[in-house]
């Protein structure tokens, strides 16, 4: 007694799609802008304060490198449907996987430390001792993630971190010398000094961080992007990259126009907050503190979680926040370890907080080559990527990025171990 067939063939109703809307807040956009966290703000603010407009030019090659690297990973995710850690394990075997995962773990541990340092710095701006704020934040983050309720509070943190958009307005209000900005943007200056190379590696490390590549690829996979509908994601990656770099551009301008002009070196978060004074006046510190807190809390949860996912994925262990310690020891162990280490280092007495933020970004930069070379090898594998392997121009840009980053890292290490050995 099924409903009888009326047998009328009607046209297929098309259902509306939200693709265009989703592209605005796609994985590429989110990931590229995740680079502007505590470590990122610290790094860019010191670039402006220390070197004025003279380092603006590196934003152009960095934008290209970031876009190229992110796009390669997004494309791998779309074509293969697998995460970066998965591909590394399946293509390179256990030993390489162990090496790459170890560098990822160290780099991400560094960034996690920087997030808790960011929380400490934000707390001190509000007059709260970091010995209170950091352990509380660590417990809160751990608990929220383990209970699976992190997604609910994520938006609040994200909203707080939007404060940093204030740098754009501040940059205009601080009346920068636009001609100097223009010159800084097109005239490359290079100095073979330890401080200069340190800053350069930190800027690269914070903009093109290893975790971002892993993250963008798994978000593309999770979103169900395939090689057929990849084009929207490609646009999303590039738009996200340009947007992220634009924010960096304005942070450097506003700190250059205020702090560099006044000859202030950034030692504490309060110094960095001063660049927001043209916008916020005496509320600059509170505003900066709020943004720093939001951005740091956001990443302090996401980063250990993403790292735990990658490592369990690569090693093939149970994963997921709903598991118990007995079911998923590696997953929950990694996550807990990162949160604990991050918080523990951030409460070391007399820690120069702002300096630590920069150092963690340098560690990122030093470990980036391992991940970059793995990505390049994978994305050029025809068996894996078919016709979607890199084109010659892409390969040139990507290889140049990998080689320059490696060269800078080696140079930096040499200069640190043998001061004065490298001279022009």
């Amino acid at each position, binding site marked *: *007694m*099924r*409903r*009888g*067939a*009326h*047998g*009328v*063939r*009607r*046209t*297929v*109703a*098309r*259902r*509306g799609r939200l693709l265009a809307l989703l592209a605005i807040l796609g994985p590429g956009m989110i990931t590229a802008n995740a680079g502007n966290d505590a470590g990122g703000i610290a790094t860019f603010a010191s670039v402006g304060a220390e070197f004025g407009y003279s380092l603006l030019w590196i934003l152009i090659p960095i934008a290209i490198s970031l876009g190229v690297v992110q796009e390669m990973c997004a494309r791998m995710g779309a074509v*293969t*449907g*697998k995460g970066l850690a*998965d591909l590394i*394990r*399946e293509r390179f*075997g*256990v*030993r390489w996987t*162990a090496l790459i995962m170890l560098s990822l773990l160290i780099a991400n541990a560094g960034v996690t430390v920087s997030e808790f340092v960011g929380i400490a710095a934000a707390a001190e701006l509000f007059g709260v001792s970091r010995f209170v704020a950091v352990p509380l934040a660590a417990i809160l983050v751990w608990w929220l993630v383990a209970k699976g309720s992190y997604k609910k509070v994520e938006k609040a943190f994200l909203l707080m971190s939007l404060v940093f958009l204030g740098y754009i307005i501040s940059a205009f209000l601080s009346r920068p010398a636009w001609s100097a900005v223009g010159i800084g943007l097109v005239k490359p200056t290079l100095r073979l000094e330890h401080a200069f190379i340190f800053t350069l590696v930190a800027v690269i490390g914070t903009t093109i961080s290893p975790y971002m590549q892993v993250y963008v690829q798994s978000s593309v*996979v999770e979103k*169900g992007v*395939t090689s057929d509908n990849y084009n929207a994601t490609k646009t999303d990656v590039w738009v996200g990259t340009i947007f992220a770099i634009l924010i960096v551009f304005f942070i450097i301008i506003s700190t250059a126009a205020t702090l560099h002009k006044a000859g202030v070196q950034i030692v504490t978060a309060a110094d960095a907050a001063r660049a927001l004074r043209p916008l916020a006046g005496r509320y600059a510190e509170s505003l900066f503190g709020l943004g720093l807190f939001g951005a740091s809390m956001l990443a302090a949860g996401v980063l250990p979680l993403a790292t735990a996912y990658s490592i369990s994925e690569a*090693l*093939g*262990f*149970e994963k997921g926040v709903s598991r118990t310690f007995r079911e998923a020891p*590696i997953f929950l162990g990694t996550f807990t370890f990162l949160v604990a280490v991050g918080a523990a280092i951030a409460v070391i007495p007399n820690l120069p907080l702002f300096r630590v933020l920069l150092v963690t970004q340098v560690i990122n930069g030093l470990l980036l080559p391992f991940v970059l070379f793995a990505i390049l090898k994978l994305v050029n594998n025809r*068996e894996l990527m078919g016709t979607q392997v890199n084109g010659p121009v892409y390969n040139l840009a990507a290889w140049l990025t990998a080689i320059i980053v490696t060269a800078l890292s080696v140079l930096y290490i040499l200069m640190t171990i043998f001061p004065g050995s490298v001279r022009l």
Partner: protein
Amino acid sequence: MLYLSQVLGRPIRDLEGERVATVKDVIVRLGADDHPPVTGLVARYRRRDFFLPRWRITQLNKHGVRLNSDILDLRPFVRRESEVLLARDVLDKQLIDVDGKRVVRVNDVQIIEAAGEYRVTGADVSLQGLWRRLAPPGFVGTKKPVEVLDWADVGYLATDAATVQLKSSSDKLARLHPVEIARLAEALSYHHGSEVVESLDDETAAETLEEMPAESQARILGDMDQERAADILEWMSPDEAADVLGDLPEEKAEELLGLMEHEEQADVAELLPYEDDTAGGLMTTEFVTLPRQLTVGEALARLREMAETPNMIYYLYVVEEEHSWKLCGVIALRSLILADPSMPLEDVMRTDIQSAEPQEPAREVAQRIAEYNLLALPVVDESGDILGIITVDDAMEILLPKDWRQRLPRLLG
């Protein structure tokens, strides 16, 4: 007992004990066997790979391989039908463990010699398996028992080698509930997820697809062979099938619809014109109607005789007469069973019917179902004809957040 990692890279010696090559890979034939036999080795000699058939091998262990002759046949290796290379296709890859209902990664492969045959007996998925390959040889000191997954429980091997799908795998997968198959398939890459669905029989594939997100359903069916996709669509409930077709490009949807059997095609085609977010888009056309003139006993007899009972028979819809769709009442199955068999349906049925119009927003209708605690709500057109029903599980899909839905089993069907 032997592990693949203990064999790879080991020397191959001839009858005289002369080292002639090294082991590059182990070849296994997948077939009906629960524990597939080793059929040969890929040997590497002077940067070239060649094939060593099983009968030439007299010994295979931790120390390497012994051959039964001095003559080495340098035949290049060519993969044959249903053969897999353990190092290339299995090691480090993911597989579905049917017993544990999970996706795991192969850290090592266990080989056992029995009755003159070397057979793959299990996949090592433990940390020790990983450590065995990471640590220098001879360094493995841990005595902890390893966690080895019986090869007989391997439901699917997520490898890129096209010809090697396990023949018996779909039977093993079919032992799982479609909800679980869907979850496992979603945990794999989308290529492998499609392969899993394709390996199932039509009915299981349809049930599995219904448990997957709409985008995955459309992608998998869209990429599939068209005849096969149409066969699977026929097994899906008409409302789900209509949803999938609506998510596919228009041309593709028309083609698939055209390939479906006439009856199922008509059921689906009827639902297609309704917008996704209306009562019409939400409804299914599978329900039971009974003419009001029947007695309770006749109605029960008719229900028993029905060859194909719809999933939803808790509500029976009473119409004016045979072959009419004009809705005049509804009877819950419970009241029908409890009622006196000689009573006419019209005395038992309820006439204060909650119903929806096809153009009503889906959300409002879903809320009404929740409010009145209904299991289903009929959709009626302006002339009073019943077009279809909206079941409570479809209503829940609208009301509950997405991640909740995946945790809830389907209530009906």
